[in-house]
């Protein structure tokens, strides 16, 4: 009897235990998922990371820092300033022909930096160190060498581009604004100022010798530049134009006609925003001093060919021009093998003549001779250059890539510009210019 009761109690206990375990089972109640933690959006206009530019190859006087000697002397100079000594001249906000300057920055536009230190490519004298200390002092700051870095200092032309470059949207708007500046007479409401502190935008012209050839340093704030500011920049760079909007339109028409006749440009090609009136010899040493109008066109609704050209604004005739017929290699050179062939093979002449005849708006009888000029390279792709002379002395230069056996780029020079270029190459070196081996 007792045995049966004990067994019964045991069973009951086990049953109760099971029930208790069941009741303690945790059930997940429905709940909203945790809110994602907000991630601060990166500022697309923040300063570029320039630290990569300052590698082991940078000289001591091009690193954004005080030298060991300057750091050693600095405490003494600081004490002298605190005792009331002042430099003969201030370097605060110097913007012209600068060797040494401390530029005040609106710190909300420069990621918390209150000033920017521009140092020359040599050791600072004690007087110059005092000038720097004084400039910082005028801003209510104390120079801490440990906090001087690429974000607030440039030395000896170490980096050319400033704290950041224009972003894509700014470049696109700059281009569009440039078009309005040239063709619509658009001008800024206020002129550009070199001082950074007034509006966050500024520039410093540099003593080139003190900055290893760098002539200018620009300040772009860590925010989107406005259209007005971009217009100020455009006006600063291009100044007063060499031609009125009506004259530019007339030049464009003349250039279109010449490129259509000589390089097969369709009438529907779109002009780029960049157009200039300048000396034909500007940017090269070929000695052509005619004044020309130049711009670039892109094919609309076609295969993306591009044309560039310059006309003589006096005669209206083409000085030089080119058409990129096939830019696959330029678009992505990594995809292309490279081979070399005989650049003097007459087969290339035939290809060049066919290409010129296909583009040229008048008869092939205008061509007087054609010859291979020799091996050339098209951005690391081997090829050959074939020249085709026309009755008026103009010369086409067809650049043929061996791997694709076709003309990639066709250039045109009138007789004068071709003679200038040839003259430059042929007479580039004279015996007097040969250096003596030491």
């Amino acid at each position, binding site marked *: 009897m007792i045995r049966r009761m004990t067994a019964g109690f045991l069973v009951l206990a086990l049953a109760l235990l099971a029930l208790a375990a069941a009741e303690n089972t945790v059930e997940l109640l429905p709940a909203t998922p945790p809110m994602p933690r907000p991630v601060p959006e990166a500022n697309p206009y923040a300063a570029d990371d320039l630290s990569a530019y300052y590698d082991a190859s940078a000289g001591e006087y091009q690193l954004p820092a005080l030298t060991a000697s300057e750091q050693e002397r600095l405490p003494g100079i600081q004490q002298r300033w605190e005792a009331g000594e002042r430099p003969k001249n201030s370097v605060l906000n110097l913007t012209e022909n600068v060797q040494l300057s401390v530029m005040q920055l609106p710190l909300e536009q420069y990621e918390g930096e209150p000033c920017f230190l521009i140092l020359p490519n040599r050791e600072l004298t004690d007087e110059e160190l005092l000038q720097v200390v004084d400039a910082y002092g005028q801003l209510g700051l104390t120079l801490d060498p440990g906090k001087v870095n690429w974000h607030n200092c440039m030395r000896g032309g170490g980096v050319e581009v400033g704290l950041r470059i224009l972003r894509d949207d700014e470049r696109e708007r700059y281009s569009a604004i440039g078009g309005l500046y040239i063709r619509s007479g658009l001008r800024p409401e206020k002129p550009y100022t070199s001082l950074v502190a007034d509006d966050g935008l500024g520039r410093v012209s540099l003593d080139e010798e003190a900055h290893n050839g760098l002539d200018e340093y620009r300040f772009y704030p860590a925010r989107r530049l406005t259209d007005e500011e971009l217009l100020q920049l455009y006006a600063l760079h291009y100044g007063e134009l060499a031609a009125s909007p009506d004259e530019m339109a007339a030049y464009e028409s003349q250039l279109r006609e010449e490129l259509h006749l000589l390089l097969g440009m369709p009438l529907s090609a779109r002009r780029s925003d960049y157009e200039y009136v300048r000396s034909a010899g500007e940017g090269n040493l070929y000695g052509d001093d005619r004044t020309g109008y130049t711009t670039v066109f892109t094919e609309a609704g076609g295969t993306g060919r591009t044309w560039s050209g310059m006309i003589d604004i006096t005669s209206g005739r083409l000085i030089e021009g080119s058409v990129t017929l096939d830019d696959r290699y330029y678009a992505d*050179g*990594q*995809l*292309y*093998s*490279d*081979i*070399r*062939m*005989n*650049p*003097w093979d007459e087969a290339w002449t035939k290809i060049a003549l066919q290409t010129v005849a296909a583009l040229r708006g008048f008869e092939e009888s205008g061509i007087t001779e054609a*010859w*291979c*000029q*020799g*091996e*050339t390279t098209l951005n690391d792709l081997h090829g050959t250059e074939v020249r085709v002379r026309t009755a008026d002395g103009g010369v086409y230069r067809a650049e043929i890539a061996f*791997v*694709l*056996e*076709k003309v990639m780029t066709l250039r045109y020079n009138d007789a004068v510009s071709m003679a200038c270029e040839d003259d430059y*190459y*042929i*007479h*580039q*070196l*004279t*015996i007097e210019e*040969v*250096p*003596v*081996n030491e």
Partner: protein
Amino acid sequence: MNKLMHHVFRLGCALLMLALAGPVFAEDAASATLTPLPLPEASATPLPETFQTPMPSLPPYPPLIGERVVVWRVIPPAIDTSALLEEAFGAEAQGIQKEEQDYGSICWNLSEEGLPLCSLRHRRGAEGIQMDFEIVRRSDWDGERVYLYNLDEWNAIPEESGFDAPQAAETTEEGIALLSRLGLYTGSTAAAPISYSTLGRMEGTAKCRKTVFAETLEGLPLRWSAAALRGAEEVRDVVISRCYVQIAFSDEDGLLMADGSWCGFEPLERASAILSPEEAAARFRQVLPSDEGNTLPVETCWFLSLNHSLEATATLAYRMGNSYLSAAEGVWLQTE
């Protein structure tokens, strides 16, 4: 009851076994002994020859009649160092100084002034693939200002260039003889002249003659892949040079300089059948759009490429433009 169930169970198992193994055990149905299943008879037909052929492996593959090599392993060439030194310094030169440099490269010269000099160099990562060599006997800048030459192509004189030019044959033969003395002509490799130029168009430069040679393998040109040549991401640690040599002479001084890159080869794979050029051309036309130039000639060549282990091979291929098709397997090696 239990005893009855037991007997029924045993009978059922026996019947089941008989049903499953009837055909085999037919003769032994009444017996309790199991006879193992017979093994299948050995095939009377021998395996095809290709299956008897072992997979290619190191060392070299055994030669078989009727097949040709379709893949070679690319290795550094064996350049005759004595010949190199003799070409640079002459047979009687004394006091040649040797300097060892990066990647197993070696440079020789006679004095600190530098010239004449010669060298055997490897580019980074290419020590097991190819070798650059150089002989420089005269510099373009001469300290006494009495001699100046310039080998840039834009200094070429078009009217005196091309293989029809007066001294082209003689200059080319001199170049071939030099390359032969250096040991670059082997059973499978040779040099094909691809261009001849007379230089001296620029005022103040001395006239000289230059031939460019391309290395060939079994008479066919070598074409490096774009990935290898351009240092694509996966092979960026290997710096590849195109397999060409340029050699320049002048009437006054003879050999001025010779420099270039060369490879050696050893057989790796063979095949008994390859695509014909016509079949290859048809494949190209199927794949390449007509406006991409699929009417270009089809070239038989060796396609040189790097594998994931950064070893180089040369594969028999057909080329049209920038696209390559393997001749043996008919697979695309590189496309536009």
